[in-house]
């Protein structure tokens, strides 16, 4: 019994690392640009398809394809911020919500047309191997994904705290007007935030590919999880999103273990509803605090 619980917690933490990459992206965009990117999950999907094609056409290992997906999605993010998002920033919610929502619909349905609804998988040499620790079972692909996800989250934290641009982003998230008075160029800061968030989504896609199937709707699962984690971890708080994502992963995994294989989503919704009912401001405090 104890071992089953520990195993479920480990499984949850491992997938929670991926959730963290998606949620940190959502919370970064929300904190800095002040919009919710409904299309974040579709960029995970895009990252997965890029990794899939690099693996099948050029034999590139999905995890190594990080070096392609991250810069590629960073550029996509800067372009989208520049061409689309920038035009709807303002006090009005409607255009912001429905622009990124339309983007999500567009990417999803384009993927459906171009790649069909088939599941695509990449088989690597480490896809089926696992460490055995006592009675515990730790799949190598998920462990690598988790370690890299934590590494990337740490790198983002260092970037936000030690570089000038990172500090400028945190300043802009705290008070945009004062930050502008201090000489911070908001367009540049927004573009970098959007690009970095999409790069994280792309990284999540590549890290998922050795043990998860790519299909047009794949992003929806992750983005829903991310939205809940971002509310739970307090909107705009990077560390909060990270901790909440790991919690969500563990909660989902325990739900699957003890309630039933298809109860993952029910756990997610239950957590969202409980959060809304009792802690609508999340468990943490503040914006882009870490």
């Amino acid at each position: 019994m104890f071992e089953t619980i520990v195993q479920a917690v480990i499984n949850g933490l491992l997938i929670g690392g991926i959730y963290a990459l998606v949620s940190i992206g959502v919370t970064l965009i929300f904190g800095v640009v002040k919009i919710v990117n409904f299309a974040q999950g579709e960029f995970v999907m895009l990252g997965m398809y890029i990794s899939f094609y690099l693996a099948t056409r050029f034999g590139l290992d999905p995890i190594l394809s990080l070096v392609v997906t991250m810069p590629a999605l960073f550029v996509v993010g800067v372009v989208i911020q520049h061409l689309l998002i920038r035009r709807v920033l303002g006090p009005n919610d409607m255009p912001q919500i429905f622009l990124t929502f339309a983007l999500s619909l567009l990417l999803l349905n384009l993927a459906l047309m171009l790649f069909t609804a088939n599941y695509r998988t990449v088989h690597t040499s480490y896809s089926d191997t696992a460490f055995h620790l006592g009675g515990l079972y730790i799949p190598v692909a998920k462990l690598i994904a988790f370690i890299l996800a934590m590494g990337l989250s740490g790198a983002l934290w260092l970037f936000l705290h030690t570089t000038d641009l990172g500090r400028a982003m945190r300043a802009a998230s705290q008070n945009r007007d004062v930050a502008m008075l201090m000489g911070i160029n908001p367009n540049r800061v927004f573009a970098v935030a959007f690009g970095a968030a999409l790069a994280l989504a792309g990284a999540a896609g590549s890290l998922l590919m050795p043990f998860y199937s790519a299909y047009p709707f794949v992003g929806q699962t992750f983005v829903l999880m991310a939205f809940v984690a971002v509310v739970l971890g307090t909107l705009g708080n990077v560390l909060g999103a990270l901790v909440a994502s790991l919690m969500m992963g563990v909660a989902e995994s325990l739900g699957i273990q003890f309630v039933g294989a298809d109860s993952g989503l029910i756990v997610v919704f239950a957590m969202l509803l409980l959060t809304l009912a009792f802690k609508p401001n999340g468990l943490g405090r503040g914006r882009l605090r870490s």
Partner: protein
Amino acid sequence: MSGTKMILLVGLAVVMLALPEIVTNSFALDILIRILLFSFIGVAWNLMGGYAKQLSLGHAAYFGLGAYTSTLMQIDFDISPWIGMVAGGAVAALASLPIGWLCFRLRGPYFTIATIATAQALMLIFLKFRDFAWGAEGTTIPNLGSAPLMLQFEGKAAYYYVALGLLALGLLVTFLIERSFIGYYLVAIGEDEDAAEAIGVNAPRIKRDIYMISAFLTALAGTFYVQYIYFIDPATAFNFNISIEAALVSIVGGIGTLWGPVIGTVLLETTSALLQSWLGSSTGGVQLTVYSLILMAVILWRPTGLMGVLQDILERYRRRRPAATAKVAP
């Protein structure tokens, strides 16, 4: 209401009432019924999403509750769906209270996400509890042939008139609310909720009430739809696309306007029907790709939607006319 507007409205009513006499093709009638139904759902969404700017993407919850209430009453207790329709509306209105209590704790985009999550959670409940309502397989609704008292008709024309009646009801409710003090409160909340509260608008109460009305109307559409297709399952009744389309037709047509959702539906449904006839049934993804492109175009270039475009054209026409008469006068 001015004389011209009155004449236009009466003319429109006559045309709409006479249409099934002219259009007898069942495929065309089906498209017309879809247009009426989604216009009605859009009108119901627009009350809350358009006037009060509470941008819900979870109206499928009420559509599904309406559909399930009337179907359960019909199959388990043999109660007419006409009664079931009203009961479904009442169930939806009641359900909107706890759902609203949770979702209104968040504002802006996170309100939208909470509404998505509640609708999905309701779908999961109906998927999971198969003893209660047939689970994932759903059920067919017994076909009684021509039974107007059971909301079943032979031929599509009668369904057309029911859908038309629903749309007329939705437009009338919107018209009355728009003209009342509640309409002004709603617009004030939509513009700036804090400012509205500061001048004494009881925003939580107004939002709760309008959400109830919106949910009630959406549920009526749910009952009508499953009676029309003789089938119900959670994926149909709580389909996310219903939530999407309710918002989309309003935004494309003109958010927060009486006729916006109707004009938006005419454009989107006609586009969708044309696409289907050009590309055949292999349109997986094409329809929503086109919808999302239209939505993006509207948001980036015309946030006031097609109603805004029409108003601009009217404005230009009006401005040209006095100029012309001025020339005639010496």
